[in-house]
């Protein structure tokens, strides 16, 4: 059947076409968001609250809310994630327990975002009685982000050469001294990169904060961690499905701000990774 070389040409062309069919929509989505969103980006849009039933004004409370939630998420997930990674790389031996932890991490990463929302509602909002609040939302997002941070930190810790540890031990340092003074400092770039990536995902998530933190509309900024907040992803949901006749400019403007926020985080992570890789001393 046919000349194999001609078949190969046809197949490779089809493969390329399929790949382009994935990439083109991605590019189109960015163009659509940029073209429709850029005209909305004025200082007033960024630094004013929504007015006239969301049909005018800006997105300041939602922007601030997302920043609060993201920082809150980091506060819980970063130390916990790094320590968990330290345990797995520096302390744990190959055992069934390590395997169980690994399986748990994989499974945690696969839990649907809405199930995190339900868990946050049941555990933090109701059981711990935190109410729908920055605290409850941050805790929920932190658990969701944990697998990303553990996995990235683990990779960063594993990449630190064994000889570094051996030198430290041979100088009489204890295991924790070695981790704290030698291993962790060398793993910082990788940990930061992973953390930013995890947080960028948390910043864009809607489902986990639906019942644990997000408010439809608040006249003023939250005063404490026990207050509800507006958040960009939920605000987009509200603007696109809950409130009729919101000007397209405001919808796309809000989307552009969220996408920019997420991308600035992603690009920062990529640049950091590239820079530290170049500077690597070993």
């Amino acid at each position, binding site marked *: 059947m046919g000349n*194999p070389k001609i*078949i*190969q040409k046809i*197949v*490779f062309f*089809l*493969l390329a076409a*399929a*790949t382009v069919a*994935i*990439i083109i*929509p*991605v590019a189109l*989505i960015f163009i659509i*968001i940029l073209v429709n969103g850029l005209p909305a980006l004025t200082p007033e849009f960024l630094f004013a609250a929504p007015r006239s039933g969301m049909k005018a004004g800006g997105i300041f409370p939602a922007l601030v809310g997302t920043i609060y939630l993201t920082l809150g998420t980091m506060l819980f997930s970063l*130390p916990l994630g790094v*320590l*968990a990674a*330290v*345990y797995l790389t*520096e*302390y*744990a031996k190959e055992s069934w327990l390590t395997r*169980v*932890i690994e399986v*748990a*991490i*994989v*499974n945690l990463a*696969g*839990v*649907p*975002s*809405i*199930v*995190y*929302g*339900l*868990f946050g*509602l*049941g*555990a933090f909002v109701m059981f711990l009685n935190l109410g729908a609040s920055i605290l409850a939302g941050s805790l929920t997002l932190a658990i969701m982000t*944990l697998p990303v941070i553990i996995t990235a930190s683990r990779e960063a810790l594993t990449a630190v050469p064994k000889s570094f540890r051996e030198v430290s031990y041979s100088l009489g340092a204890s*295991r*924790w001294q070695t981790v704290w003074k030698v291993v962790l400092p060398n793993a910082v770039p990788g940990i930061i990169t992973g953390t930013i990536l995890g947080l*960028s995902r948390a*910043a864009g*998530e*809607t*489902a986990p904060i*639906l*019942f644990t933190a997000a408010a439809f509309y608040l006249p003023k900024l939250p005063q404490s961690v026990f207050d509800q907040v507006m958040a960009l*992803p939920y605000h*987009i*949901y509200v603007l*696109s*499905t809950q409130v009729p006749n919101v000007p397209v400019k405001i*919808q796309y403007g809000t989307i552009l701000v*969220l*996408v920019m926020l997420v991308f600035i985080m992603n690009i920062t992570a990529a640049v950091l990774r590239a820079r530290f890789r170049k500077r690597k001393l070993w």
Partner: protein
Amino acid sequence: MQKRYFEKLVEAAVFLSGLTAVLFVILIFVFLFRESAVFFSRVNIFAVLGGRNWYPLSEPPQFGFLPLLLGSLWVTFGAVVVALPFGLAAAIYISEVAPARLKDILKTGIELLAAIPSIVLGFIGIVVLAPWLKNLFNLPCGLMALTGSILLGFMAMPTIVSIIEDSIASVPRSYKEGALALGATHWQTIRRVILPAALPGIIAAVMLGIGRVIGETMAVLMVTGNAAIIPTSILQPVRTLTATVAAEMGEVVRGSLHYYALFGIGLVLFVITFVINLVADLVLHRKRV
């Protein structure tokens, strides 16, 4: 002496942190189970899982999961039909065919896709994809199962492409060189040698893609039309498990049967994704042995 204590204390903290992932998986299960136990104890489980009507607000309420379960399955099946051929083709192209510079651009493009929040893709689905499909099929409304399938298939692409790519990359070079040395063309080598060797990775990729799609919430809530009826065509509106929880939990009375029923849906979702992830992980790990 003090230092010893400190060291022990730190070690305990590190050990406990190491266990948090396990702890949270258990806690999530316990909380979902605890809340949904109230629901499942008050209703007939078989009537729920096989129930054809989801009317939580009628009198008496009916909590049949079947339309929601089928809604999720239809959308997911459609998404896999969309994502697998394109994802597989892209993974082969990127890892075997594309020149090095193009490869980086394509990979970055697919990573960019993974970074777009699902709420944003949901919005694009409403304003761009749905009207387009509506005109294409000449329908009264573009919000339906097919719209969800296409959008979710697209969203599953980064997962599928990167896992297949990894598994193609981990096929030993000698396999490929052996085939080429025997006079096979590059494509014959890919089809007869590399793909069969990468099969476990491809299977795992599809499973993890399914896990991702079945759990996707916001985009699917926005574009599938949200009608809790048993679908008979992909051109009909459907409602998935995830969308039901997201749409109804906000308005439900805390402590009502409806409230616990939504936790019941959460438990079903958790169990489905847990099994999928566990099996996919086993498939991926068996490969290395």
